[in-house]
């Protein structure tokens, strides 16, 4: 699972995902007491991608957290590869779905190199190279800018090569040049057959939108 994960990407759909993909029916989202969305219905077939749009607080991040198995859902169905999400073991779910959150926390200031080693990933992988992560390898996490930190964890998320990748505002902290780099990398991975659900305010107009209105 190292230098060859870029070539793995060409052989997708990865990890034995059947043609069923993701299907969401009648899902209700809530953040604490607040009701965010009701009766959400959508489906993502293998090789398809969607962007999730809507105003701040509409529940975009909550939806991604629910799909990654981090937040419970009371109403509705979420099926991944034909299996109900809540019945999937965490080890199995993590082979199907990966998630990049908006902010990445850490307690100890590992170096970027140490972070990749802990994940068993090669920093000089094609994905890392295209996002210019290797040049950060000596730096500690406390020494990175917001955009650099986001690129480190975006690389790690993409390198996991899951069938479905959930990205929460992957362009938010990037400058214009890196926005283009990240966008074209994601487009390339979509063309190779990987599925993405991207919560975003801008970009990716070519893929269908799932609109959350909030309230």
């Amino acid at each position, binding site marked *: 699972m190292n230098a060859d994960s870029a070539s793995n990407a060409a052989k997708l759909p990865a990890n034995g995902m059947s043609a069923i993909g993701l299907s969401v029916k009648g899902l209700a989202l809530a953040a604490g007491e607040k009701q965010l969305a009701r009766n959400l219905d959508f489906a993502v077939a293998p090789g398809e991608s969607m962007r999730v749009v809507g105003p701040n607080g509409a529940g975009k991040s909550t939806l991604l957290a629910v799909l990654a198995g981090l937040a419970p859902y009371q109403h509705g169905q979420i099926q991944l590869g034909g299996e109900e999400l809540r019945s999937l073991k965490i080890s199995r779910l993590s082979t199907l779905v*990966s998630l990049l959150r908006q902010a990445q926390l850490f307690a100890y200031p*590992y170096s970027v190199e140490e972070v990749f080693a802990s994940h068993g990933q090669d920093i000089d992988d094609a994905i890392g190279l295209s996002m210019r992560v290797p040049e950060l390898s000596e730096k500690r996490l*406390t020494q990175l800018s917001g955009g650099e930190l986001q690129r480190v964890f975006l690389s790690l998320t993409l390198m996991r090569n899951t069938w479905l990748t959930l990205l929460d505002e992957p362009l938010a902290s990037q400058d214009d040049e890196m926005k283009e780099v990240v966008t074209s990398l994601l487009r390339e991975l979509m063309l190779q057959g990987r599925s993405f659900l991207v919560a975003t305010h801008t970009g990716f107009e070519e893929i269908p939108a799932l609109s959350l209105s909030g309230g």
Partner: protein
Amino acid sequence: MLAVLIAAYIALQLGAVYLREPLQILTQRAADPLAYSILTEIRIPRVVIAVLAGFAIGMAGLLAQSAFTNPIAEPSIIGASGGAALGSALALAAGAIAPWQIGLAAITGAGLFVTATYLLSVKRGQLSGYRFIVVGIAISAVAVALTGFIAALNTGSGRSILFWTLGSLALARPEQIPVLAIFVVASIALSVRVMNQLDLLNFGDDYARINGIDVKHLRARAVLLIAVLIGVSVSAVGIVAFLGLAAPHIARSLVGYRNKNLLLPTGLIAALLLLVGDTLARNVLAPTELPLTIFVAIISAPILIIAARRTVIDERR
């Protein structure tokens, strides 16, 4: 590693009776039977126990700081040491003598008290680092108070029970070595495989879950390992506060942050500090023995401060 061996050699020389050539005495038993028995019956066991117990305490500190992602977590703050002392005290008061009986009682005590700290600091499934430390200090205080209570009730063995709360190798016996060695080696073997998983906890529980880690199971395993390591070390040398806090930080300033790379250096640094601390404790006012904790703290503190100043925790670009 070399530093530990050198310190061990010096520790064998020093004592109420100075032995200039420990290795020669060992190979020529007949030449000086008294010196030979001082070495084999008192000093060598003491050095071996100091190294094993030090390694165990350092490793437990590393596991605590990583599993609970808190740089000030350590066995004597999260309830492990207090629980182990209480378990030992109860076993002694009940008349137990064998090292494995006292060791098992200490492991049970440490396990129960760390588990209590953990369960009381989790709220709605979320572990708060702040709450964990505050609850741990409270739980530790209860354990130490109960240990004192048992000591006061048992005037006969009370003195040796009190020793557990201060830390000392004065009562170290060769019979304790097998129990310590077995549990320390087993704990290392069980820790190695989860070191990368502990690294991922650094990025938050949710992050670890997204990466397929069963966080509850991982923490339960860490708690079990901490209980075993602290149980066997406390039953042999008592509570040595601060060592489990200091050793991982000193190691991080040398080898970085990955748990896999920290395990051995942390254990060896703690072993070295405990060994040097004990050698000072029994030589500074020889033949009177002073509490171990005093010297471990005095030598660890400056090194910890230097280590903290070397690391880049707060440095921004």
